């Protein structure tokens, strides 16, 4: 997903300016000229300047605004990538409710369905892998992974 250098530079110019602008609102430390805003002002200014340099000195200024990588034009590939990204986001949002064993099993099964030919062995692999990881992490390494609705079972 390549973005035109001018557009990219403009984005960084705006981002840097915003960081610098908001940093002015941070309170200074009592009796000091410096405070929480000092460093963001420096970094924000540098980001804005770098953005400006990219706008005027970027390599692909005449390139289209956005060029998708070849793989994204294949529907099945794009679907698999989208399932991975959106599925992970949804799992993160409902992690405590749905739990790792159920949520991750669903995500991995969906991913195999989206990226491979249907195979019950792959679905069994997904569920088995998640259950083994869950048990290993919770029992062996004492990581408190939420079990969600399967709490009583695992």
């Amino acid at each position, binding site marked *: *997903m*390549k*973005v035109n*250098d001018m557009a990219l530079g403009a984005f*960084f110019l705006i981002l840097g300016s915003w*960081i610098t602008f*908001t*940093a002015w609102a*941070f*309170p200074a*430390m009592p009796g*000091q000229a*410096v*405070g*929480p805003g*000092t*460093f*963001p002002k420096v*970094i*924000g200014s*540098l*980001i804005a300047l*770098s*953005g400006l*340099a*990219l706008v005027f*000195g*970027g*390599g692909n200024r005449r390139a289209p605004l956005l060029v998708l*990588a070849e*793989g994204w034009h*294949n529907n099945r*590939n*794009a679907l*698999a*990538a989208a399932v*991975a*990204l959106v599925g*992970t*986001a949804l*799992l*993160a949002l409902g*992690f*405590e409710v749905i739990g*790792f064993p159920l949520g*991750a099993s669903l*995500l*991995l099964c969906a*991913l195999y369905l989206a*990226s491979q030919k249907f195979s019950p062995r*792959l679905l069994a*692999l997904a569920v088995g*892998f*998640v259950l083994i*990881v869950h048990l290993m*992490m919770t029992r062996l*390494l*004492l*990581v408190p*992974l939420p079990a969600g609705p399967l709490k009583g079972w695992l």
Partner: protein
Amino acid sequence: MLANLDAAMTLVFTWNMAGIILACSVFGLFVGSIPGLSATMATAMLVPLTFFMDPVPAVAAIVTTAAMAIFASDIPAALLRIPGTAASAAYIDDLNALTRNNKVGRALGISVTASAIGGIFGSLVLMMAAPKLALVSLNFTSFEYFWLALLGLSAAVMLGSSSLLRSLMALLIGLMIAMVGMDTTAGFPRYTFGSTSLLDGVAFVPALIGMFAIPELIRSFIGKPVHVPVSKVGNPLRMFDGLGKLLWQSKLNLFRGSTIGTVIGILPGAGSDIGAWISYAVSKRFSKQKALYGKGTEEGLVDACAANNAALSGAYVPAMVFGIPGDSITAIVIGVLYMKGLNPGPMVFLTSADKISAIFLVFLIANLLIIPLGLLAITMASQVLRVPKRLLAPLILGFCIVGSYSINAAASGVMVMLVLGLLAYMMEENGFPVAPTILGIVMGQLVERNFVTSLIKSDGGVLPFVERPIAAGLALLVLLVWSVPVLVWLRGKSRAWA
């Protein structure tokens, strides 16, 4: 130290100790090779067990686990391009490039040997010169730390094979991410958008996992499902084929990496990850094959792998001599030492000389054990390469989710992994290197804290930043690092600028 060697050996060479060291080695290798589970986490998990141990076995358990975990993080870095711990992030592209070129055995052979040599070097320095070196490190104030951090960041910008401008911007993105959360001097929340989970800042481990794993996963899903034939690791001893010659040719790199790692490790607050970054940068600076860096350099691997394990030993110098933690692992060790009545400080070398010598001896043993046990771990883990990547990708995503969640037991870690992973994907697609961003996230708070503290000390003045001799020397080094591209640019060789 040598005077107490006999007494130390009787404490170390027991069946009880052998069992503990072996068990902790396996545990360290296991945890280190799982992305997201850090050496610090492995160490922290051991603390409850150390309650039931004598002082020397307790510290031995921690030392062994940490040394193995730091090395083992190179295994997923090479096989999957996901660093097990931050220490592998500096040279992950080289490890992975060698793996793609059917040299996985060679890559991990270098890693295991250089790690062991670096670790042994650091241990010997610790044994011989701990008190003297700790005194030097105590002369470091915020001014020196500021310049040291700036030197590390500057080195990261020069590291990449991308243009200077894009490398600089990548670093600034990392520093920007590090600014999120409560600021280190006044505790004022910045750029959190009201999210309480961001008050502590962007969690580093999920960021690390996301920035390396997610772009790889996306590429594996959208790429054509081609099966790249990959060489098996095969007989573990074959990993050493030609390795002796390489290590002999790279003896300077080994010495330099080990020295840099040990020195960085001794400095409080700078651990094996920073040691590896700086060592890799120095290696590139003096290499005749700069173009190979990031694309499978063996030379850079020797430097950086030696540095990260040497730093681990170096971090124990201020911990043992002054009770000042060199990194998060030694902070835990100090707690255990107090718990066991071995209060760190100059007096502990007199009152418990045999125990301290025994602990130092364990360092040597743990680093020697890296080679046989490491080879075993590599052989077992390398089976992963036989599985087609597209089949493996969902399982890797599962591990990434677990790793991101585990570090703080919070789902926000999974979101951080995803968002920063997408950012890294966009960056790589547009020619921005990810390595400087990672270093920016790692060192952002260190830079800011020392920058602001120094400004407060100097009352806003610039001169105190270079008044002290070490600070002036480090400032000069930073100037030298930056003057190289400027000179090149002035000579009209600015084609690589953008």
